[in-house]
């Protein structure tokens, strides 16, 4: 059972890291603010979600697991708001030009 859980953790975190890598690559390579945000939100949402999912079997208590989930939810919330604000600012600057 332990082995299965460890394998699950490695697979989930590995997949999460792949999304982070892809997101970072997109951030560096994509041409404008909107597409970069698109790449970044993939890393934030899916990448972190998979990392948290992978860590869940490793925590000792339910409380620690809930804390991990809370961290994920808070990051999703703030990244959603911040990407909205950045996109809006970018749009306004485009209009001024």
């Amino acid at each position, binding site marked *: 059972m332990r082995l299965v859980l460890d394998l699950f953790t490695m697979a989930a975190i590995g997949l999460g890291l792949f999304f982070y890598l892809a997101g970072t690559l997109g951030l560096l390579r994509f041409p404008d603010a909107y597409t970069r945000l698109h790449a970044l939100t993939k890393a934030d949402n899916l990448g972190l979600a998979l990392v948290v999912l992978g860590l869940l079997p490793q925590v000792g208590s339910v409380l620690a697991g809930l804390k991990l989930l809370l961290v994920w939810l808070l990051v999703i919330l*703030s990244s959603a*708001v911040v990407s*909205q*604000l950045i996109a809006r600012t970018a749009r306004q600057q485009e209009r001024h030009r």
Partner: protein
Amino acid sequence: MTPVVSFAIALLLLALALWSVLARDAFVAVAGFVAYGLLLSLVWVRLAGIDVALTEAAIGGGLTGALLIGAVARLRATEAAALHERSGGGVRGLAALLSAAVAALLVLCVLVLPGPAPTLAPQVAANLPATQVGNPITGVLLAFRAVDTLLEAIVLVIALLGVWSLAPDGLWGGRPGQRHVADPDGIFAYLARLLPPIGIVIAIYIFWAGADHPGGKFQAATILAAMWMLVQMAGLADVPPVSTRRLRWGIAAGPLVFVAVGVLGVLTAGIFLAYPEGWAKPMIVVIEIALLPTLTLVLALLMNGPPARNPES
């Protein structure tokens, strides 16, 4: 594996430090500095200094970064002209020489440190039970070196007074900074309504956990200050004029209670800031609770800057 990660982080840290120093554009430099602060807190985690890591992330990366971004915004108007200025070769050579000398001196200081560094850690560990506090950092900050913490709180209040004193005479006592406006139905206002209750609970948790685990009043105060800034920036609530009596009492509360506890120590235990036998933990809790509003208000008001509007506006 572990040394490789440490080495990579150290290398990245140096690169970011160099980036912040060399960047010509102030905003780019600040962006590098914030990333540097976050990475530095990772280093503290690796060194098992979780308390320092929390403080570095909150104060070094977060608050200082926000203050610097504010400064960059104010300097925007004059920055373009400064970008084209280049100081002469002599001045730059002297600056490089001076920097190299300071660096060499620091290296020398590190090299001549005595082999096993002098440490008070065993004494702290031996006497920690007397304070009834589980977290040695809290024990040091509020029992063994409480005077330092008291002076630190006072220094913060004085720093705020320094910022306030930059106000023009006519605006003294007014509201700090500009009034923020945001779409009241927008996503930012939504976040500013949703997040503060969560932030307040987390801050109180970190504050309370500080007795036995990493955390404490400083980290909690930073979170509370951030929540207040969020509400202000979303235009949901304006910052009160600095002449408000309640605001001033809130700021003075921490140092006043701290000094009162110190004087109580003179009366009961014969020395300033000594805690009566068996009363260390309650006294520490009283001081921490009193310092929380002081630190929250000071940190947030430092962000707001000097009074810039009439109290009536």
